[in-house]
C-alpha cells in the first residue's frame, strides 16, 4: 500500500514539475513578447522558450568534469523538490511539510548547487558572476526575511497551506490588504530574486559574458533554463500564497502569478542596470525599511507569541 501511495505521489509530483516548467517557460515567452512590444518590435512567438529548451537538450555540450555535471543537476533537482511543498491553488502534494522556510532554503540549495557547477568550470567570468549573485542575495534576502517573519507573526503559523486558508473569503482577507508594506518590500525583493533589471548584474552579457552561464552549453544551459523557469514559478507562487490569498483553482493561481511577473517585466523594461554595490545597498534601504516597519506594525498589533 505504501508503495502504491508512493507511486501515486511520484506521478503527481512529476505532473506538478511538468506543469510548473511549462508555466515558467510560457511566462518567459510571454515576457519576451511583452518586452518586444514595449520596444515596438514584433517579438518571438510566445512558445519560443519551449523551442529553445528543446533545442538545448538536443545539442552537444562540453563538460568540465563530474563536479560540473553534479552541480548542474544539483542546480535544478532541489528546485523541483521545493515545488512539491508549494500549495498550487487548492492542491499541495505534501501539505504536512509545506513550511515556508523549508521551501526558501531548498531554493538556496539549488543556487548553491548551480554555483558549484559553474564555478567548477574554472572560468573567471563565472566566478565574477557568482560573486555578484551572492552579493545581491545578501541584499534581497534580508528584506524578504523581514517580510516572512512578519507574515509568520501575523498568521501564527509557518505552513503555507494554513497561511492560504487564513486568507480565504474574499479580497479583504488577503494579506496584501492587511500588510501592504510587506507586499511592497516583497515585490521589490522579487525583482532581485528573478534577476531582472535593474538587478541583473550577475548575468551581464556584454560585460562578463553572461557570468555564471559562460561555460554552459547544450543540456547544461537547458538545465539552467529549467532551473530559472521553475524558480520563476516557485517565487511568484510563494508571493501569491503569502499575499494574494492563494487561489481556488490552478488557472486563477497562474493568473495571479502572471500579474506579479507582469509588474516585474514592466520594471525590467524601463530601468537600466545598477552597479552591484548600489543594488545591494538599495535593498538595505527602502525595502528593508518597509519590511521592518511592517514587522513592527504586526508586533504592535499583538503578534508576539506568549511563550
Amino acid at each position, binding site marked *: 500500500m505504501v508503495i502504491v501511495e508512493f507511486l501515486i505521489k511520484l506521478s503527481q509530483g512529476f505532473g506538478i514539475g511538468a506543469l510548473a516548467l511549462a508555466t515558467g517557460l510560457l511566462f518567459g515567452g510571454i515576457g519576451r513578447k511583452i518586452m518586444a512590444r514595449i520596444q515596438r518590435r514584433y517579438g518571438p512567438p510566445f512558445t519560443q522558450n519551449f523551442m529553445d529548451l528543446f533545442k538545448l537538450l538536443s545539442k552537444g555540450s562540453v563538460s568540465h568534469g563530474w563536479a560540473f555535471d553534479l552541480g548542474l543537476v544539483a542546480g535544478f533537482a532541489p528546485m523541483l523538490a521545493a515545488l512539491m511543498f508549494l500549495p498550487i491553488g487548492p492542491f499541495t502534494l505534501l501539505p504536512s511539510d509545506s513550511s515556508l522556510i523549508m521551501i526558501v532554503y531548498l531554493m538556496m540549495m539549488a543556487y548553491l548547487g548551480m554555483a558549484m557547477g559553474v564555478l567548477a568550470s574554472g572560468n573567471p567570468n563565472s566566478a565574477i558572476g557568482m560573486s555578484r549573485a551572492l552579493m545581491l542575495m545578501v541584499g534581497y534576502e534580508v528584506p524578504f526575511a523581514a517580510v516572512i517573519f512578519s507574515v509568520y507573526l501575523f498568521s501564527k503559523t509557518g505552513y503555507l497551506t494554513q497561511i492560504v486558508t487564513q486568507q480565504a473569503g474574499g479580497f479583504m482577507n488577503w494579506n496584501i490588504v492587511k500588510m501592504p508594506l510587506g507586499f511592497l518590500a516583497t515585490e521589490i525583493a522579487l525583482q532581485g530574486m528573478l534577476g531582472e533589471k535593474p538587478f541583473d548584474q550577475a548575468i551581464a552579457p556584454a560585460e562578463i559574458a553572461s557570468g555564471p552561464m559562460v561555460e554552459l552549453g547544450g543540456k547544461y544551459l537547458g538545465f539552467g533554463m529549467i532551473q530559472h523557469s521553475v524558480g520563476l514559478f516557485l517565487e511568484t507562487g510563494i508571493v501569491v500564497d503569502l499575499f494574494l490569498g492563494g487561489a481556488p483553482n490552478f488557472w486563477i493561481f497562474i493568473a495571479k502569478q502572471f500579474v506579479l511577473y507582469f509588474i516585474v517585466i514592466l520594471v525590467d523594461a524601463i530601468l537600466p542596470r545598477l552597479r552591484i554595490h548600489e543594488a545591494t545597498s538599495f535593498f538595505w534601504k527602502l525595502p528593508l525599511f518597509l519590511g521592518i516597519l511592517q514587522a513592527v506594525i504586526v508586533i504592535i498589533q499583538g503578534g508576539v*507569541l506568549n511563550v
Partner: protein
Amino acid sequence: MNSLLALLIVPVIGSAAAAVLQRYRLVERLITFLTFSVTFLFLFEIKIGDILTWHLDFLGKNLEMGLQITPLSIFMLYMTIAFGIVLTFYNLSERSKMKGFLLLLTLAASNWIFMSTDLIGFFFAWELMGWSSILMIFGGKREEESRHGALYYAMMSIGGSYSMLIGIFLLSNLTGTFSIQSNVSYLTLILGLHPWWVLGIVSLFFVAFMVKSGIFPFHTWVPHTYGEAPDGFVPYLSSVMSKYGVYGFLIFLPLTSGAHVPSVLGLAWPNYVLLWFGSVTAVAGSVLAFMQDDVKKLFAYSSFSNLGFILAAIALFTPIGLTAGMFHAFNHLLFNGAIFITVIAVISKVGTTRMSEMGGIWQKMPLTFLTFFVGIAAAAGIPPFAGFGSKWMIFQAMISHGLIFATVLLFFASIASFLYLMRAFHAIFLGQLSHKYDNVKEVSAIGKITEVFLLGALIFFGILPGFVLDPINSIVNSFGLKPLPTSGYEYINGFFSSINMVSIFIVVIVTFIFGFALFAVVAKHKKVPQEDNYTAGQIPQDWNLTPEMYQFSYDFYEPMDKELAPFLKVKIDGFFKGFGESVEYIGEAIKEIFTGNVQIYTYLAVGGLVIFVIAGWVVW
C-alpha cells in the same frame, strides 16, 4: 574504580604515557587516540545523577568538592569526547605538530569542567584547560607568529580567569561555600534585594565565558590564535573548546532570567543584552569572515559567528531558545569539524593557507571535496543536512518573542555565511587547478574513513534530528522548563511548523535521481580539460595564460567591502582594532619583560594561585 573519576584519571594517565613516549610520534598519536576511545567507553558506565564528593583540607578549611552528572554535562561529554575520537583518529595519519599529551590534558580538564559541582574544581579545570591549550598553540608552524597568537590568547584568557576568580571570591565570601548549586540558588534568593550585586558577580563570570567562546567584544584573539595554532588542533579549538563558554553561560543563565529583573520586550534585560552581544557577534563574524584570504582565519571568524547564534538563542532562555541553542552547538561541532578537518587536509597537501593560491583541488581530492561541500551546505543551514534544523529553530525562537531587529540581523548573518562559505569553496576547491598541485593526492585511507564518517554523520543527524533533540529535551527539563513536544526521530518541532526531515530527504533524493536520469537521457556531452575555456577568442598559450592567472579568487567580494567600508571604519578601525591593539600592546610589554618565554603563563598562573591563597587568608 569509580567511572566518574575514571573520566579524569584515564586522560591524565594517557597524557603521562604520551608525554613519555613523545619521541615516537606514531605511538604517541596512537596513545592519544586510544585514550580518547577508552574515556568514551567509560561514558557508557555513567548515568544522570551519579555523584562523587570528597573533602579537601585547605588552609584549615574543610572544602567539599565533587563531580556530578547532569543531563547537560552528559550531553557535553558525549559531544566533546566523540569529536575528540574522530579528530585523533584522523590525526593518526597527519604529520602535524600537535602534542598528544597536551590534548589529553585538555580532555581531562574539559571532563572536569563539565562534571564539577564546586567552583574551585571548575576554576582549576578551567585554568588547566586554558594552560594546556596555550602551550599547544605555541607549537604552530610559524614560530614567531604562533608565539604571538598564543600570547594574545594567553592575555585574554588571563583576563577572563581573573575576572572569574574575583567572581568566585565575592561569591564564596557571601555564601561561605564553593558549591555551584548552592551559590546559584543563593544568588536567585537575593536577586530581588540586590539585583546589581548579583548581576555584577554574574557578569564577572560571563566575561570569562565570553572570552573563551570568543564573543564580541572579546573575540579579537580568535583569528590570531586559530590562524597560528597547529593544524591538527584547530578543529578541536573551534568545535569543542568554544563550547566551554556555552556550558558556563548555561550554569548562570537561569539566574539572570529570574522574574525579579526588569524586562525589555518580555525578556529579562541581562538576557536582552546578552542576546544583542550574540547577534552582533554573529554579524561581525560573518562580515569579517568573507573578507579574509587566509582560510584558517576565515573559518575562525565563521566559528565565532556561529557562537553568536548559539549565545543569542540560549540568552532567550525559553524552551525553544534553549533547544535551538544546544542543537546548534551540536550541529556547529559537527559541521565545523567536517569543514576544519577537510581544510587542514587540503592545507597539509598544498602547504599554504592562503586561499588565493589554491584552486581546483576538487579534481585531486574528490572525497574531501564532497565532505567539504556537505559541510558548508550544513553550515549554510540547507536541508536535509544537520544545521538546518537548529538555525531554523533559532529564528523561530527569536521571532516568537517579536525581536524583529535581532532576528533580521541574525538572518543577515546567516545569508552572509553563504558568502564566506562560497568564497572558501570556490577558492579552495573550484576554479582552475594550478600546475603546482599536479602531484597532490587524496588523503590517506584513515583520512578517507574519517571523512566518510563525518559525511554520514552530517546526513544522519540532518534527517534524524531526534537523536540529538531527545537528550536536549531532558536538559531543558532539568532547567525547569517545559520541553518542546516530540513526535518521532525525524521531526523538528517548532512554533510555526513541524518539519519531517525524512520526507524531505526522500523528496530530494527522488528529484536528484530524476535529475540524473534526465541528464543521462538527453544529448551527449564531451569532456574537455580546464584549459579549453572561454577566453573571448584569445588563445591562452599565445598570452602565456596560466591557470593561476585565470582564477578569480582574490578580493572576491571587493564591491561589498566598499559598501561596508564606512561601517568597518567606525567599528573595526575605531573600536575593535583599538581594543585589540591595546591588548596587543600589553601583550608586547609583558613579552618584553619575560622575553617572550613560554613560562610567562606559568608564572602568571602561579601568581594567580598565590593571589588565591592570600585572598583565602583574608577572607576567612
